[in-house]
């Protein structure tokens, strides 16, 4: 088990008022993302627990692109990863933001 944590400045606050949402499942090759609106509007935090060690650089790149594309200001995203591939991670992160924004982005 490896734990990783990334904090970013976000350009915009995530839309909506919903306080939290959960997407995905913890399974082999999959992941669960809990998203909570707990941070100041220009901050976001991604906290990762993963069963696969040694992919820190890939996580860093996936998270940076996610923040740039979706601008999840005010959100804390906690990931429980069962060894998902980066494409799945990017998809679940985007789904998590959509879920907490309560509408299609």
């Amino acid at each position, binding site marked *: 088990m490896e734990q990783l944590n990334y904090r970013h400045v976000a350009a915009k606050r995530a839309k909506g008022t919903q306080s939290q949402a959960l997407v995905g499942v913890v399974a082999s090759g999959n992941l669960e993302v809990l998203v909570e609106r707990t941070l100041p509007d220009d901050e976001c935090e991604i906290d990762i627990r993963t069963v696969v060690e040694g992919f820190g650089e890939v996580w860093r790149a996936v998270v940076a692109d996610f923040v740039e594309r979706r601008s999840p200001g005010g959100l804390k995203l906690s990931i429980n990863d069962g*060894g998902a591939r980066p494409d799945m991670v990017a998809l679940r992160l*985007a789904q998590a933001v959509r879920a907490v924004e309560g509408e299609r982005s």
Partner: protein
Amino acid sequence: MTVWDNARRARDSRLQAGARFAQGKRVAREDATALLEAVIQPGDRVCLEGDNQKQADLLAVALAAVDSGKIHDLHMVQSGVVLPEHLDVFEKGIAKRLDYAYSGPQSQRIARLLFGGQIELGAVHTYLELFARYYVDLTPQVALIAAVSADREGNLYTGPNTEDTPAIVEATAFKDGIVIAQVNEVVDKLPRVDIPGDWVNFVIESDKPFYVEPLFTRDPAAITETQILTAMLAIKGIYAPYGVQRLNHGIGFNTAAIELLLPTYAERLGLKGQIATHWALNPHPTLIPAIESGWVKQIHSFGSEVGMDDYIRARSDVYFTGPDGSLRSNRAFSQVAGLYACDMFIGATLQIDLQGNSSTVTADRVAGFGGAPNMGSDARGRRHPSKPWLQAGKEADPDSPAALRRGRKLVVQIGETFGEKNAPLFVEHLDALKLAEKLDLDLAPVMVYGDDVTHIVTEEGIANLLLCRDKDEREHAIRGVAGYTEVGRGRDRKLVQRLRERGVIQRPEDLGIDPLDADRNLLAARSIKDLVRWSGGLYAPPSKFRNW
């Protein structure tokens, strides 16, 4: 005086040696090994029919049981290395040299035997290439083949899985070789004649039907959202703008997703009748919903697929069938069809390098190619025009006069940037190169050469290599869709951005696709059971795909 019929005399004496075990053409299965010891000679080229699907398994067991003191140094020339016995003959010293095309199920063991030196490798061929060599420099002295049934004269009915049999038998029978067939049963009257009896020398009735490998069944339940996204990209970004009507699909999950999106996503895009109407394709169960929805005009098949026979029989407007009603497949003709009459091949691979070369060879697996290199290559002898072919040719070479410009086949590699066990799809150097070095091969086993690849589709987007004007652009077009792999992270962002502005790279948003719309609800069937339902109960999936 010069003798001009040495080979015929040799064949006659082999036939005589074998006749001891035969009544007419029939040989008891208990005598199979003795028959082979009588008719085969050391150093012979032997084709032990191992196709992509159909396996002459009784004859494989019989050959693996011959006395290696009597029969040795055989040169095996067969398209598929699929059964354990196909390699046992090398371990036992019965065979020495191998020329083949595909070794999917034996990919790990064949790698060990190659590294260990027990197999002297001629080459890994594409199917059509190996069949071609049957007629030039790899003509078998003995062919061991499989059919469904035989009559008293030795006429054969191959049923839906005709596959390689006609190509093998023609080369052997007409060049003084011996043809031995295993059949499931001997009957008075065949449903149809696929191989004439006077091309067949011995017939052995097996105690069980020959083995067929189910290769083309993809369970829709296992299709991921990322695969659906790549399928949406391919449909909207390639099938639609080029108007691809004549095509071949690989066997991966990405192309299975495309098949299942035709009646849903593609239908909503108004593409019915515009794309994917004529196919060189095995009977993929995942194409059933598109067929039932009226998308598909015609399909010619390399072989059959387990469980599809009744469905095919009931859809003769779509498939090629015989007077008996069952499928007539033919690998050689379907490969030619894919090469010359299809405008697109789209399939998955395991590794793509920075030049776009792709290979399914990895460090410890030598899976061979099968048909992909034929399907995935530009036929330089093609002369008939079609819209996609002309358009692709124009994109590659906009300055030549149109009437003198070659068209181009669309050769599309599709996949997720990371595969099983997080193995990256994109690599700096193919494992195939290491293999070539280790085995001292003149050629690395490259499945599709980079200069044949026209597009690469991943979840990150589409790279159109036709539009690249130099090596550097090409490399960055590939890096630009390579996602978070090391190759992808090694991109020059500005160069990739410029390629995107020129349409060389297209992102999902450039095509109006929201990755969040890539939902399993888009699949016309989400389980094997759904496919059975679509088929009106005609599709009978093999038990390993049934969970009800």
